[in-house]
């Protein structure tokens, strides 16, 4: 305010100003940095423990045979056989579920974000949230009841499982897609309209293109959410030891159901001296199937991310 202070004084004053930021604020900042790092470490602990457990228990069972054979004609306690049928079943059923859920889910998200006005949109938003709360077993019961009406009692086919899974998957796809579409700046849409591009093309070429990375993440999360479902598949698809690739005829095995089933079989009672019998083979099979399932999801994730990297527009 006044010009009479000397240069040295001014320098001293400035120095104080620049160094004396509130110690308390600094401490809070440091503490929060620690807290946030800690949060991350906290999440890594169960992850590492889980992966370690699954890997440690499952890796011993891994072999070409385990991945390429089915469990057909395998006796309890027999360390032969494999999970090929379950891998194929999981891929087909989850694939069909995604085939149903992704278009429906993404289109609904588009409807909500791009068109949604009025009571229908409000109802859809609200009930999508409600739908996330459908317990998986209820989805299974619902599908069994539905297909009993169509095919009569006792029908257990792969596509029933796919429908049950999509009931669970759709709301997750809608919710995450909606969140991602909302983040596309309005300027982009307007820029496109201003170029005379019709709305549907704007949505396809501009909105979806911009948000493709987020959408992929959302879909992958949704797939991950349902690929491990057990209860609905157990009652809607049944179990089998044999290989089946037709989701419209006959039972199929899936990895989580396989893992659960092997787990609940427990120890095999081996007679003494029977070297071909492994007591805890069922547990080993369960862990092996779990490991495979995790590997599949990891693979899907990596593929999704690569797709992302190649096609996502550079936003920033």
């Amino acid at each position, binding site marked *: 305010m006044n010009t009479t202070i000397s240069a040295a004084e001014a320098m001293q004053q400035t120095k104080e100003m620049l160094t004396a930021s509130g110690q308390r*604020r600094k401490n809070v*900042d440091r503490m929060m940095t620690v807290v*946030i*790092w800690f*949060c991350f470490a906290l*999440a*890594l602990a*169960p992850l590492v*423990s889980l992966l370690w*457990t*699954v890997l440690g228990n499952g890796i011993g069972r891994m072999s070409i045979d385990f991945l390429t054979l089915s469990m057909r004609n395998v006796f309890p306690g027999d360390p032969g056989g494999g999970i090929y049928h379950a891998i194929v079943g999981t891929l087909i059923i989850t694939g069909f579920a995604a085939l149903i859920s992704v*278009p*429906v*889910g993404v*289109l*609904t998200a*588009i409807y*909500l974000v791009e068109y949604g006005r009025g009571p*229908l*949109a409000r109802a859809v938003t*609200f009930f*999508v*949230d*409600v*739908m*996330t*709360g*459908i*317990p*998986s*077993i209820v989805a299974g*019961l*619902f599908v069994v*009841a539905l297909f009993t009406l169509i095919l009569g009692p006792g029908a257990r086919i792969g596509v029933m499982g796919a429908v049950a899974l999509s009931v669970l998957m*759709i*709301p997750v796809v809608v*919710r*995450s897609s909606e969140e991602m579409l909302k*983040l596309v700046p309005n300027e982009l849409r307007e820029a496109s*309209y201003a170029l005379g591009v*019709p*709305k549907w093309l704007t*949505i396809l070429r501009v909105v979806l293109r911009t948000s493709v990375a987020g959408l992929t*993440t959302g879909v992958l999360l949704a797939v*991950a*959410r349902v*690929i*491990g479902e*057990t*209860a609905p598949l157990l009652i809607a698809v049944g179990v089998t030891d044999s290989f089946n690739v037709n989701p419209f005829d006959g039972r199929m095995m899936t990895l*989580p159901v396989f*893992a659960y089933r092997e*787990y609940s079989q427990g120890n095999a009672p081996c007679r003494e001296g029977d070297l071909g019998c492994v007591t805890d083979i069922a547990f080993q099979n369960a862990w092996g199937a*779990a490991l495979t*399932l*995790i590997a599949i*999801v*990891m693979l899907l*994730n990596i593929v999704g*991310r690569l797709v992302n990297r190649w096609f996502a527009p550079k936003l920033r």
Partner: protein
Amino acid sequence: MTITDSPPSGEAPPGPRGRVVRRRASGDTERGFSRIFRWIATGAGALILAVLAAVALFLIARGWPAITATPAELADSVPRYPDDTSLVAYVGPLVFGTLLAAVLALLLATPVGMGIALFISHYAPRRLAQGLGYLVDLLAAIPSVIYGLWGFLVLAPVLKPVWFWLGENASWFPLFAGKVSATGKSIATVAVVLAVMVLPIITAVSREVFLQTPKLHEEAALALGATRWEMVRTAVLPFGRSGVISAAMLGLGRALGETMAVLMILSPGFTYSLHLLEAGNHQTIAAYIANDFPEASGLAVNTLIATGLALFVITLAVNMLARWIVARRKEFSGAN
């Protein structure tokens, strides 16, 4: 390819034919495929409502015999049904257990999930961030059966000493009172496992939203002399609030409906107990259905489905609450 067939506006006389009237708001001049596309999108939304209505109808239709049955009839045919209890009083502890487990899980997971999301979006070295995010996403990929196995075989033994310590030293606190479970199969363990399960959902959505915080706002905060945490507090968190709430709701949905992990870990019971460390006090609806469904027949099945209906209603209520919270803050929402 422009598909506008109206004449250039210069030639169009602002005439008496009311050309202006026909086109409503500027964005609504939909022709050709745009209109079809709108119907497809709307159809998808309507389809979801139809599916949900079908599920709800199914629940109501199959739950109805249990809702209309007398307590005596229910006690007769449902194995666990005590005498002289109305259906509501019977489902009550289940609702309580479901909410308790889910809320505890959410209380544990939301702060941690936000922390992880912030870590990935604003704290981690940039080169690492993506890979780390991917790691957390992996948690979502683990099937619930495996969570059940792990929670019981690995986590419970680790938590048991903690629970015993709490039971000894903090039993004055109502939540930690009572006899600590010898096997660790208590609702406290379940809540921790559920928290781990919903963590990736909360993290993934929050992370995306936090990453979208406008650079402008972050720089504005920094330029005012905010520390990194203060920048996060003033710019990132308010912007991401609605995203975090919807992330938490997604997580809550999963926690409420989670079946296998609860089924494999919890020692169920049917009380309103707040003793988190005690076994045999709580049960969640989803696990209850999965547990008793295989052996149920006749009216017992209807009763199970009626409890499923209760879960449905809970989700409805929880979501209404969440919407109300979000709507209240709408004016100051960061989106747009």
